């Protein structure tokens, strides 16, 4: 090598020599507490890598993801383009104590959501007691009339829940969003771990990491537990929109991990209000459906009559208790961004407990006070439309221009009920390999909870990272990548 180094970096700091994040909580380097020995060990091991080595392994990861087909496919004009979710080789670490806290908090949240859904589709006590405005629930576009009075097995509506967590500047975990419909991303949790063990065996060697291998088993078990009563050996299937869906890889992954058929709507048929799948030996009964289709596409007879993806008669079969659908219909009320603001009160109402995981302070623009506060503080707030997902249509006040603020003000005043606002949280960061070296990038965390007779939380979850410098938006549709999440067993 001819190039002499321009400065002499701290040799012990290695790839972290220029790493500096005074303003944020850093998951690896700036925890504002004494790091547990395992975490210190990971820091030391990482520091011994060279940048070139990390880049080499990152490239290898990308090649592997393409080859293995861990991709989302974008279809245009007969062309199928496979894209990979960018993978960062530096893991995000959660200590044993942090995980215990998250796990309990997520279990509490799921329990409250299931009780809430049962209530709003039965007695509506929470509405009578004035805890949450009745209109917000009953006029919610996701409220599903077909669910009224229907008893679901075990009282479980949300069998699979994804809770989006962030950490503020002090490191406190906050719930940003619930995903109670068809949360996606769990395949990446497991595939990222496999990738990590292939690519960075020297980093992971001998560390006490919690395993993520059990997900398919637990999911299958839970779905069997909530199958219709009296079925000895329930047949579970995974219902996918098919190969043209961008999440098809995840559907394949989950079907394989559970060992159940991946079906499309056209593979199922309803006869005498019972669901069957078409096999080479004729029709075979189906008892539980893990569906990755939204409510409105499930059954052309009950919802969107143009849906070619669904199964005619499925909802009636469901209403008669002949099949379990996971998640249940109409769960979207619970993860609505406006209902979110009431979640702490919902938890207290049903469980008589304080929320273990706090929510982000939320102003509801449908309420006069909330609107007034939001209008007065637009430049300090994140303002979100309640119906959108994927990070679309939101305004980050401190990053917005005057013109953008003015334009958004009109939208807000025209339709205040469509918005909520929250303070800007200085999301925690994690060291991430970037074009200029290892730099701090904001991360979030989506743990996945599976509920049958009880609620089990997959240790860790999907850590998404905003790859653009300073960006707070981690969604894969908006330039996000992902990291392996290591939950330390000790």
């Amino acid at each position, binding site marked *: 090598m001819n190039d002499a180094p321009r400065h002499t970096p701290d040799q012990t700091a290695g790839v972290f020599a220029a790493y500096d994040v005074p303003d944020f909580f850093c998951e690896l380097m700036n925890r504002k507490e004494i790091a547990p020995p395992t975490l210190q060990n990971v820091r030391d091991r990482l520091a011994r890598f060279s940048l070139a080595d990390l880049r080499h392994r990152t490239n290898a990861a990308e090649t592997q993801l*393409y*080859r*293995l*087909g861990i991709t989302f496919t974008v279809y245009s004009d007969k062309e199928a383009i*496979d894209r990979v979710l960018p993978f960062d080789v530096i893991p995000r670490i959660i200590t044993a104590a942090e995980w215990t806290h998250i796990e309990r908090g997520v279990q509490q949240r799921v329990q409250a959501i299931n009780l809430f859904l049962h209530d709003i589709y039965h007695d509506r006590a929470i509405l009578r007691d004035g805890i949450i405005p009745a209109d917000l629930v009953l006029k919610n576009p996701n409220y599903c009339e077909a669910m009224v009075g229907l008893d679901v097995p075990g009282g479980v509506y949300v069998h699979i829940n994804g809770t989006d967590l962030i950490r503020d500047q002090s490191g406190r975990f906050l719930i940003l969003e619930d995903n109670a419909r068809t949360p996606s991303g769990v395949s990446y949790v497991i595939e990222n771990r496999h990738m990590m063990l292939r690519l960075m065996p020297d980093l992971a060697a001998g560390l006490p990491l919690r395993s993520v291998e059990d997900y398919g088993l637990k999911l299958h078990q839970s779905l069997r537990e909530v199958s219709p009563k009296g079925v000895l*050996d329930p*047949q579970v299937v995974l219902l996918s929109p098919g*190969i043209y869906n961008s999440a*098809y890889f995840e559907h*394949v992954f989950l*079907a*394989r991990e559970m060992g159940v*058929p*991946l*079906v*499309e709507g*056209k*593979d199922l*048929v309803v006869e005498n209000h019972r669901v069957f*799948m*078409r*096999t*080479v*030996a*004729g029709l*075979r009964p189906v008892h539980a459906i893990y569906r990755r289709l939204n409510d409105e596409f499930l059954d052309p007879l009950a919802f969107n009559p143009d849906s*070619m993806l669904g199964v*005619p008669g499925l909802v009636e079969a469901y209403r008669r208790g002949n099949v379990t659908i996971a998640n249940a219909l109409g769960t979207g009320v619970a993860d609505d961004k406006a209902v979110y603001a009431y979640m702490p009160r919902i938890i207290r109402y049903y469980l008589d407990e304080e929320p273990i995981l706090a929510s982000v302070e939320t102003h509801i623009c449908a309420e006069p006070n909330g609107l007034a506060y939001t209008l007065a503080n637009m430049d300090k707030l994140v303002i979100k439309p309640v119906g959108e997902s994927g990070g679309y249509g939101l305004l980050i006040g401190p990053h917005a221009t005057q013109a953008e603020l003015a334009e958004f003000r009109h939208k807000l005043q025209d339709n205040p009920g469509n918005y909520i606002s929250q303070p800007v949280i200085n999301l925690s960061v994690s060291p991430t390999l970037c074009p200029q070296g290892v730099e701090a990038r904001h991360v979030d965390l989506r743990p996945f909870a599976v509920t049958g007779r009880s609620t089990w939380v997959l240790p860790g979850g999907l850590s998404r990272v905003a790859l653009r410098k300073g960006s707070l938006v981690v969604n894969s549709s908006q330039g996000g990548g992902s990291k392996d999440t290591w939950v330390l067993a000790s």
Partner: protein
Amino acid sequence: MTEISANFSSMQPGLNTLLSRYGESMMWLARYMERIENLARLLEVTESFVRGPDGQPGWDTILQINSDEECFYARHQSVTETDVVTFYVTEKENPNSIKAMAHAARENARAVRPLISTEMWTQLNVFTGWVLKLQPSDIRLDSLYDLCNRLKQECQSHFGITEGTLYRDQAWLFYLLGKYLERGDQTTRLIDIRYHTLLPGHEPVGSDIDLTQWASILRSAAAYHAFRRQQPVTTTPANVVGFLLKNDAFPRSLSTSLRLVDNALSMLAGHGSMRRLCAPIQERMAELRATLADQTVEDIIIRGLHEYMQWIQIQISQVQQETACAFWPVTPHDSIMHAQSQQ
């Protein structure tokens, strides 16, 4: 046969839940991969050995084998090496091109991805990704041999990985059904291409050019050396045809392919309620195999080789259709949906 060593009596009950759609895709995955391999062989052999009466490579023969003249002339003026090779390798508009078939194989594999091994998917994903990116400019005629060889080897890798990793349930049997139906069909097409030299009044059988032609047919079926071992002294067209049609030890002969189709059907039939569904197809296969076993190759030639090859091709296509009717029937509901989507 080692190809079907799976014994269903030792399998757990409850495995007869293969989705119809999976059965269909497994069958077509195998058919497309087998067809790609055969086409690659044919291109390679044509380039090296097949010569027309003028001594030029017989590129028009390939078009005849595949009944592709119409499709070809719709897009090309004349039969040159470049035109034919492009037509068969990179022209996606030609449904019989390697590119179009690789695409079809990949989409079928995508549908059965929950069933096939990760190793199968990964190899197929990389292979088809390479083929789909091939441009006419990537095909150098002076290295056509290398291209064809790589194509063949990729297909053979696929078959090898499948043999070594695919779980032996009904999905496997439908895969075998597709593979051997296609292989049988391809062999008849290969033989059919030289049938006219056997017609009375043509150049005398046994002339030099004729023997080269027949040897090239053996080569495109990877049969040349096996044939030599069986017939070290005499090469006659009848011997060659007989070997490709009736030799039970040669893996690409028609009789072997039909036997393996039959074996796969027997395995399927042995599985509970499938017997009834398999019976009519097995009957057709029995008749098909009997016509082959009961005639000498001389009989076949005298009665009309071309007619017999065409009859076999029709029978094979019937087996495909009957399999579809039995195992992935179109229901009244499907036809309604289909009619609606066409409006």
